[in-house]
């Protein structure tokens, strides 16, 4: 078998395996969200289905599939149907550029080289930012096409919030780009070779914190979940969605969560690298999985502790605090990088 055909076969395998694994992971993360919500609140979460209630997600999926599919009469039906998928797909596409193991180098699998990334795209980081921006379309279109007061308010709020925080997010990752001298996620992980003190979270501590806060806004999670603020707007842009359509929104939110945890760990915490070089024998994907789990836990912890900002305070924080700080971070990084050579 020649090398291109082998690469094609590997590509197909990866392209099928990675989304399937992500979907399985998301099903369990939804369960863990509810279980951990219970634990943080001093109660046990779901316990009924399966051992420790772990099949709760599957029960939820069956329940959602069995519900009536209500589409409001005066809504814009094609857009209404399309909106969940506009949020759903970009998250999966980002997984294509996220490396989960060493890329390049010699042949390591049956004599052929197996790259632990689906697409070694040399502008991977920019692709991530761009796809995050497409997700905004889904939210705004969902709110608008539902033709309801609450949905419209929620959709517009969410859209404005996501756009504002994307700026801060973009500027804060440019610091990482400067340090790694590349826009490719593969190269960024290569640049963090060594032990955990070589990872980028130490020099980029300010950028990392800004990125973390900005991704909370991108994910529409507390403290930035005004779009779905249950107490104020019933369910915001999700109000008119029922049954499996709502299920797809929820799914998309958690896939985004996994992907962004992956991005955070890749950019700042070494991606698939082990914290200590002696632990290199444990394969890369396992380390990435562990790091994703840690960050998902931290996102959940933050969600179940903090309450939400008021809308104008949120926007003012995004524009007046995070954006200047991230630009400052960028300038300082640029100066240090150019001085240090």
């Amino acid at each position, binding site marked *: 078998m020649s090398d291109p055909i082998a690469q094609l076969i590997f590509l197909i395998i990866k392209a099928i395996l990675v989304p399937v694994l992500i979907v399985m992971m998301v099903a369990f993360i939804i369960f863990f969200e509810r279980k*951990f919500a*219970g*634990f*943080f*609140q*001093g*109660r*046990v979460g779901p*316990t009924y289905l399966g051992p420790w209630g772990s099949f709760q997600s599957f029960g939820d999926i069956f329940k959602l599939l069995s519900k009536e599919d209500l589409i409001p009469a005066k809504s814009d039906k094609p857009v209404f149907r399309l909106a969940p998928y506009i949020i759903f797909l970009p998250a999966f596409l980002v997984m294509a550029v996220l490396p989960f193991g060493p890329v390049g180098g010699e042949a390591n699998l049956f004599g052929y080289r197996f790259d632990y990334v689906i697409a070694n795209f040399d502008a991977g980081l920019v692709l991530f930012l761009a796809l995050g921006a497409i997700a905004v379309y889904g939210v705004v279109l969902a709110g608008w096409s539902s033709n309801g007061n609450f949905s419209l308010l929620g959709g517009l709020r969410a859209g404005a919030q996501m756009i504002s925080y994307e700026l801060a997010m973009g500027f804060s990752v440019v610091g990482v780009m400067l340090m790694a001298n590349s826009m490719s996620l593969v190269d960024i992980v290569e640049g963090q070779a060594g032990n955990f003190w070589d990872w980028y979270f130490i020099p980029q501590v300010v950028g990392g914190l800004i990125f973390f806060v900005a991704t909370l806004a991108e994910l529409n999670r507390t403290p930035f979940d005004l779009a779905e603020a249950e107490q104020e707007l019933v369910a915001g842009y999700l109000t008119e969605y029922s049954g499996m359509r709502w299920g797809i929104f929820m799914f998309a939110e958690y896939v985004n969560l996994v992907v962004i945890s992956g991005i955070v760990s890749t950019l700042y915490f070494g991606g698939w690298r082990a914290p200590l070089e002696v632990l290199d024998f444990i394969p890369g994907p396992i380390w990435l999985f562990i790091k994703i789990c840690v960050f998902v836990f931290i996102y959940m*912890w*933050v969600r*179940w*502790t*903090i309450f939400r900002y008021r809308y104008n305070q949120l926007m003012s924080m995004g524009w007046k605090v995070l954006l200047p700080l991230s630009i400052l971070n960028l300038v300082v990084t640029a100066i240090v990088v150019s001085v240090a050579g």
Partner: protein
Amino acid sequence: MGLKDIVKKGAFVDILRGMSVTGTYFVVDKVTVEYPKEKIQPYPRFRGAQALLTYPDTGEVKCVACMLCATVCPSRCIHIEGGETSEGRSYPVTFDLDLAHCVFCGLCEEVCPVAAIVMTREYELATFDKNDLWLTKEWLIANQKNVHKELLGRGVGGDGER
């Protein structure tokens, strides 16, 4: 805002304080009682569904159909038909309690002069059929099994009551 406040704000001290509290809840014991596998025993004064007490030796109801409970009930949910036994003793021919109207206030138990009607521990009264909520004399007598344990063998309405 002094320097200390700025540093505290930047390091998210207050938010971390809140997260430390939820973090501790993550690991300590949970307070959930997993109903229906585990059930909490109500206190002796708990006012559940009623029961009509009978004399242990003869099996007759203690109730003398004096109508005090039916009169005091704020929801007017007790319906009694009185009659006389052959020995000349008053007794309720029918004693119906409409559980759909009962507010479980306990006034019927409080005013009964012969301590015939008591409130029990029974609170699992949900049913699919509304007719089940019309409690008859037989049901109330059979409900004696749910009478609070502290009541039995101590004389109802004794000193200190329950």
